């Protein structure tokens, strides 16, 4: 009986193929996946591609969306920023996808932004970033600076009594903007300029001897010192190895990182790094039923119980869930209808809190600070009592403090000081 059905199924598929693309387009909802599968960023982005595929697989098992099957269209922009824009155009114009999940670095997001705005596409961006942006066509499911950087610094100030700061980052837009925000935040808290050291290194920097020695020297300034690291990607492994070998312990000079998660630690021997910190909105070690189900689903999908989950994966999960809910609510995959349905959409996240999509296209999420453990996981040492609303335009940069993002009436604007529509006088 079963084999009979399989044969029939195969026949139907064959027939559908014969009918050609027209029939198929009507029967499936296409979801674009725009993550680098080769090049420098493949290390981080491949996992997110798999996460989207897992979610697509999951929803198809449950009978699809609006009675249709969901089909993932995967393209490889190869860590090449202009290629991101080209591939985005291909997904929107040629493949006619309903939504795109993609991008990791801010520069790739900036590269696809004009394409999404021109063709009125929908992008879900799952990575923590520097803020200072709110596009009508993008939903940002990663953290804004007030959901990651600022709480982490506040934690170090109050709990570890840190008075001297090293802001170390890779030389591109995310670290530079984040450090600008942090610097003015620290100064507003009374930290003197001589107690802040800012350092930038190129992508993939591998020789950290001088910088680690400088950090140690800076740490003898008679005040408790901490490093706030926005070092991205491959450069982290040699950085942490050098810290460990030069004997910088977390109890002397703690390092809090914004780009180091479970996935990055998988490439490092973490025993010497005990106690260094990371700030995210989710850790794999969070204990709650949603997270257990999420991890189980991931292990089953990827067929390995050794693979870890991390914050951008959780952000992808939230984004995908919200999009499916919004599509169901709107009863259509039409971009404008789905966007309206997105606002106020709620999802029980693996972080254990309900995440809400705000009208600035950013999420409300909890902030957590974890310490690195010997097994490569994080132990949560602090978290906010509830979700924190993302602030797209930081209050700590003078030019952006007065800007606001709100895509509902009367604002309808991503970067305005005043609402676009004046309230009528009645």
């Amino acid at each position, binding site marked *: 009986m079963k084999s009979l059905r399989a044969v029939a199924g195969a026949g139907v598929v064959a027939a559908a193929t014969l009918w050609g693309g027209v029939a198929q387009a009507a029967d499936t909802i296409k979801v674009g996946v725009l993550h680098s599968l*080769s090049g*420098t960023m493949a*290390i981080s982005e491949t996992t997110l591609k798999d996460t989207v595929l897992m979610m697509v697989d999951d929803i198809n098992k449950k009978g699809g969306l609006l009675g249709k099957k969901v089909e993932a269209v995967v393209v490889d922009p190869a860590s090449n920023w202009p290629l991101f824009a080209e591939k985005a155009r291909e997904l929107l114009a040629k493949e006619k996808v309903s939504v795109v999940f993609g991008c990791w670095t801010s520069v790739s997001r900036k590269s696809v932004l004009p394409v999404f705005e021109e063709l009125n596409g929908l992008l879900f961006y799952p990575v923590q970033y520097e803020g200072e942006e709110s596009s009508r066509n993008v939903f940002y499911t990663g953290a804004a600076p007030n959901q990651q950087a600022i709480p982490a610094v506040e934690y170090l100030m109050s709990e570890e009594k840190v008075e001297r700061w090293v802001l170390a980052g890779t030389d591109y837009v995310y670290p530079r903007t984040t450090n600008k925000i942090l610097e003015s935040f620290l100064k507003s808290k009374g930290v003197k300029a001589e107690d802040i050291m800012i350092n930038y290194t190129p992508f993939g920097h591998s020789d950290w*001897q*001088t910088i680690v020695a400088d950090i140690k020297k800076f740490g003898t*300034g008679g005040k408790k010192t901490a490093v706030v690291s926005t070092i991205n990607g491959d450069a982290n492994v040699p950085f942490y*190895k050098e810290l460990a070998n030069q004997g910088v312990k977390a109890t002397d000079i703690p390092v809090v990182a914004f780009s180091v998660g479970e996935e990055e630690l998988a490439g490092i021997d973490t025993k010497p790094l005990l*106690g260094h910190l990371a700030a995210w909105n989710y850790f794999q070690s969070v204990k709650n039923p949603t997270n257990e189900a999420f991890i189980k689903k991931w292990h089953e999908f990827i067929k390995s119980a050794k693979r870890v989950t991390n914050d951008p994966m959780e952000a992808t999960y939230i984004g995908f869930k919200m999009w499916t809910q919004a599509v169901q609510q709107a009863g259509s995959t039409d971009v404008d209808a789905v966007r309206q349905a997105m606002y106020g959409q709620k999802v029980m996240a693996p972080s254990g809190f309900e995440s809400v999509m705000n009208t600035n296209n950013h999420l409300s999420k909890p902030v957590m600070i974890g310490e690195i453990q010997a097994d490569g996981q994080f132990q949560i*040492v602090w978290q906010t009592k509830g979700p924190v609303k993302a602030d797209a335009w930081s209050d700590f940069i003078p030019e952006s403090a007065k800007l606001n993002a709100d895509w509902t009436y009367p604002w309808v604007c991503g970067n305005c000081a005043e609402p676009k529509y004046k309230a009528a006088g009645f």
Partner: protein
Amino acid sequence: MIRALALLAALLFAQPAQADAFSEAVAGLSAGGFGEKIKAVETLAALGDARAVPILRAMAEGRLLARPDGALVIDGHDATTGQPAEAEGALAVSINNRLRSAIQGAVGRLGLVSPDPAERGRAAQAVLDSPSPESAAMLRKAIERETDAAVMTAMRFSLAALDLGDADPARRLAGVAALADSSLDPQVRGLLTRLAQSDSDAGVAGAARQALEGAETRLRALRIAENLFQGISLGSVLLLAAIGLAVTFGVMGVINMAHGEMIMLGAYTTFAVQEAFRAWAPAWALDFYLVAALPAAFLVSAAIGIALERGVIRFLYGRPLETLLATWGVSLMLQQLVRSLFGATNKEVANPSWMTGGIELAGGVMLTWNRVVIVLFAVAVLAGLAALMRWSFFGLGMRAVTQNRAMASAMGIPAGRVDALTFGLGSGIAGIAGVALSQIGNVSPNLGQGYIVDSFMVVVFGGVGSLWGTLVASLSLGVVNKFLEPYAGAMLGKILVLVFIILFIQKRPRGLFALRGRSAEA
């Protein structure tokens, strides 16, 4: 006799009372937030009971588990009584950095009463990690009892450092005076700087400033030595990366863009060997997996190098542009191959214990073992290669073929085979460079790309075809880079070095050590 009995009785009666206070303090360790736990640790330390030491150590290492019923368990035994206990459903007692330093301090203070002098010496050091008035008081008592001279010195030193935080200016001044000689020590410098900046007593602040300035010259000399070591270390990494290229590009003249991937393959072989050792080798052998990884990495990279030469490059001799494009394509293929075999994520290659940590020279200057080993290793590889080229028959054939292929063939040297083997040798050396580089960087499919530009830079700067040129070029580039970095930053430093090389090549197109003769004209 009566006194002994009385003592016994006193002990019998006293024991329960103290045990109660002790177990109560232990029970507090799992209570509430970090603030309460810190208080519990302090209470426990104040009891001065040596039994607390293993419990606190277990807590710091995350081995202290709390059962839902409140009982504390360490490795299957109850924490207070030592009786075997179930650990079902127990969670590790969570700690953070502040708590961790509190525990370190407590363990340190408790260690001061240990009967073992080595333990007391360590404790004298450890109290410095978490300075507090209680530690100073305990240290003062410990010094009165101390018999061991070395431990006594360590304790005096720590006490002086602790005295810097005392409320009494006279004590602070005495502390500064006692520490003036050791103001190179980074921990002492930190304490002295704090005094110099913000002490309420002008005399103390002045003395602290003077003590700091006294060490300034020596410190500057140390920094230069440190920079020099870092430069040599960076140079040796460049040397390792470039030395294989010095053979394939320098001797054979092949522009091999897949050179970085040979390094990457070596690093992945190291990873594979490490995994094999973890699975099958006895525990004592784990530290020596690198020894087995060296020949394995050489063979893997050499085999792929030979296949590349026989399969692609030999058809392209004399067509540099096509060689460049073809090897570039091969490099992308190798990267993707490794990515699909091992996955896109970084692989963890652990430093063996003899390559972890470092030796601290005066003034906080660190020589890290992995760097020291790599410097020595790079020199050994270069010497080995130079010896092979100078004295072996294969080396002779290699030199003959590169100088005059037609003449060498006429003399009966199989030029094709020598080409293949030479390319294999260059690739194999890149493979063992990969073994070394896996110890300081990350092992990912892109590993090679970070080194390819630097490698060409070194070979071109040193003079194509000259091994000595490669050595001098890599070391001088490393040292120059490291001396520029503190002033210009990592980014600008790199740019300045590149500009310098471009200018240098304008002046001397053939690099530092130009080869004379026929091969130079080719």
